[in-house]
């Protein structure tokens, strides 16, 4: 924490690396299918020839940039560039359709920088105590957390609860296809080897979100996004004042993001969904979530960038990586001979602190870099003629899906899922509940099976599922989220019975 580490992070070389990393990461993140994991994996050998702290700053900057970049595609194309940006599509795309895409991009940038700072400062100041959060979460807590995430389906399904639930259940079934992750069976492949690897989340996101948009785009000659006649070059000031008005939302979402980030195996997508759910639950009456509400974007984007700093907490303190990018950074550290784990802060303090300050610098640099790239991304998406935009995005979906596992069959699966998603969405089964099921299904299944196994072994199944304080708290939040709107509506109806 000494000032010296801050100075050693502030060398021109490190700042240049941080800037380069943020820019590269933002671009990587904005392309669906290109993940931070892939970019980091390729860059790790650099760490062999560089000063470890500088190399880590580069990796951290790319990671944080990529999480922000995921918002572009989410807002402008309704396709999360990274899984973390799933909930950004809920309000981002409606905003873009209304002609507020530039505002949405600027909001996402402010929120991401804010969330990133909260996560990084938590990492700097509170890492050892906060790492306990990772350990307090047992299988059952993960199970309830996923149930809480799934409860968002109720509010996403726009009055058609049965269809939303069916979509969620279908998504969870999709998540079980292939070799089971913790048990020893191969499920729902029907003897075919194509499906052994199951539905990859990134490929499924591209298929379910992006392909339907493309299909709808080509069918009619209208413009992709509505553009105001006098395109205001930037709407930074407007975005900033909106962000300032939502201070509380930003702080709450960033704290949620940091905490969820600490949980290994949850990650940015869950953090974004939880923060979105909370923002929606506490919404003021005039706010219409799901129809282009700025607070929805800010909740998700601040939460998912907070997971970057949060995720490094268990990675550095416990040697347990929270997300795949964290795992790559951990591997790079190991090769350097830096011993992660409980002794790391005392033994390799200078590298760790220089890295954390570097992450903070990178997050700050994301503000100008992000606004600039965001403006450029928005302008190019709205000005490129549809006839070029559609095939370009289509080609990106193919190359992106292919490169996740270098597999053509993954691309075919992605396309099939896309057409399927388009058809069912046309009849009221929206894509988001399916995606929620797909992402949260494995967390729910593993938590349930493990919790059940432990509970049965200790003859305390009820206590296992309902007796633990954190579980009870999550369960309470879930029930409130699910039933409070209904109860309020009922009360309202009781007080004004003539109103139908």
């Amino acid at each position, binding site marked *: 924490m000494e000032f010296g580490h801050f100075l050693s992070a502030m060398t021109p070389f490190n700042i240049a690396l941080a800037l380069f990393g943020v820019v590269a990461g933002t671009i990587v993140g904005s392309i669906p299918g290109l993940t931070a994991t892939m970019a980091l994996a390729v860059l790790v*050998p*650099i760490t062999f020839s560089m000063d470890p702290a500088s190399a880590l700053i580069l990796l951290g900057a790319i990671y944080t940039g990529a999480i922000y970049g995921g918002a572009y595609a989410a807002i402008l194309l309704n396709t999360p560039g990274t899984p973390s940006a799933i909930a950004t599509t809920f309000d981002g795309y409606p905003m873009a359709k209304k002609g507020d895409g530039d505002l949405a991009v600027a909001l996402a940038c402010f929120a991401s920088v804010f969330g990133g700072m909260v996560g990084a400062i938590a990492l700097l100041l509170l890492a050892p105590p906060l790492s306990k959060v990772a350990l307090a979460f047992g299988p059952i807590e993960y199970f309830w957390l996923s149930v809480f995430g799934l409860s968002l389906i109720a509010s996403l399904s726009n009055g058609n609860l049965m269809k939303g639930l069916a979509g969620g259940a279908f998504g969870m079934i999709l998540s079980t296809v292939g070799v089971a992750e913790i048990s020893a069976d191969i499920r729902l492949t029907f003897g075919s080897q194509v499906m052994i*690897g199951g539905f*990859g989340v990134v490929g499924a996101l591209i298929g379910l979100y992006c392909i339907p948009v493309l299909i709808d785009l080509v069918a009619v000659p209208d413009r992709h996004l509505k553009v105001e006649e006098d395109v205001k070059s930037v709407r930074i000031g407007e975005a900033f004042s909106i962000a300032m008005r939502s201070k509380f939302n930003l702080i709450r979402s960033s704290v949620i993001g940091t905490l969820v980030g600490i949980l290994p195996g949850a990650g940015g997508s869950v953090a974004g969904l939880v923060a979105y759910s909370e923002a929606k639950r506490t919404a003021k009456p005039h706010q219409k979530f799901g129809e282009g509400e700025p607070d929805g974007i800010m909740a998700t984007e601040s939460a998912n960038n907070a997971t970057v700093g949060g995720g490094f907490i268990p990675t550095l303190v416990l040697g347990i990586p929270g997300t795949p990018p964290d795992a790559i950074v951990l591997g790079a550290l190991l090769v350097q001979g830096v011993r992660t784990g409980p002794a790391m802060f005392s033994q390799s303090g200078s590298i760790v602190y220089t890295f954390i300050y570097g992450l903070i610098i990178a997050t700050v640099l994301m503000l100008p870099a992000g606004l600039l790239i965001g403006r450029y991304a928005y302008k190019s998406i709205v000005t490129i003629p549809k006839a070029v935009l559609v095939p370009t995005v289509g080609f990106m979906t193919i190359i992106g899906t292919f490169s996740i*596992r270098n597999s053509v069959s993954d691309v075919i699966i992605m396309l099939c899922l896309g057409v399927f998603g388009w058809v069912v969405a046309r009849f009221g089964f929206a894509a988001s509940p399916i995606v929620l099921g797909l992402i949260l299904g494995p967390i729910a299944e593993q938590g349930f099976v493990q919790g059940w*196994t432990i509970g049965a072994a200790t003859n305390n199944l009820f206590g296992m599922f309902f007796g633990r304080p954190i579980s009870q708290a999550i369960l309470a939040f879930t029930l409130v989220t699910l039933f409070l709107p209904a109860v309020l509506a009922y009360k309202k109806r009781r007080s004004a019975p003539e109103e139908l």
Partner: protein
Amino acid sequence: MLRRTILKTGAAFAVMAGLATGASADIDGPVNYIIPFGPGGESDISARLQQPFFAEKFGQEMVVSYQPGGGGAVGWASLNGLNGDGQTIMGVNLPHIVIKPAQKDVGFTTDGLNTFYMFHYTPDAIVVPAGSPYQTLDDLVADAKANPAQVTMSGSGKASANHLAQIKFDKMAGIQTTYVPFKGTGASVTALLGNQVKAQWGYTTVGAKQGDAVRMLAVAMEERHPLFPDVPTFKELGYDMTGGAYRGIALPNTASAETTKMWSDMIGEINADPAFRQKMLDGGFALLDVDAGGMADFMAARSAEYLNDAREAGLIK
């Protein structure tokens, strides 16, 4: 080919700067090293440790990429369809490549994989948190005898090295413990540190990584691991258990005998480097030298043992 002559990424660029090229046997450009799992596991870490030594010795970059899915099956099923010119290699793991094809048709067979070197293994170990009441293996066995099934032990996945070890040890010690499968060693360690389970079936690498936070009760090696001179082997304590998860590298089966030999020699050379050995030992790994020549015998012996254990455990028919 064009792509091989272009240096990939600044990475290759940075590492190669100043190093003499050439001197490489027959590899031509960067090598694609596919890990059929996600990053962060033991397979990834050991590949990352090999990476700088490979670049230094053979003047070419080793590009590690991940192709997770199906517990490795997606990668292995695709291996023999890749180019066998020696520019692409893939990590292989025991017991995975033996157990998976024995369960169901997963698109590859154990014998169909051209495994040319097994370079290390992570010995099985029973790990408990530092604050655990189990000071010795006997404490754990005694508790499990007194309270059948109540001793919960986490591990990575089912029908895995951890699971087979648990079944085997339970049988040897005449106890009944409850195995709780997690997604990977990292998740299983988290559960252990959070006291969600009483003990863990892990590897010596867990002890190396977690240091004072955990205590290993016994390791499944012939002799004690140099990093943990105080941790007894199972054999010393009267249980005939050695082994763990073995890791090696394979080429597509279209690779020529010369290419296979070349690769076997190269990995052998890295394995012989004292600095590499030290890094591996510091990470808690145990080195192993089974080259292309000795592979058939090694695989036959290991396969027979794994299949027998799995059959007895009812994991395969």
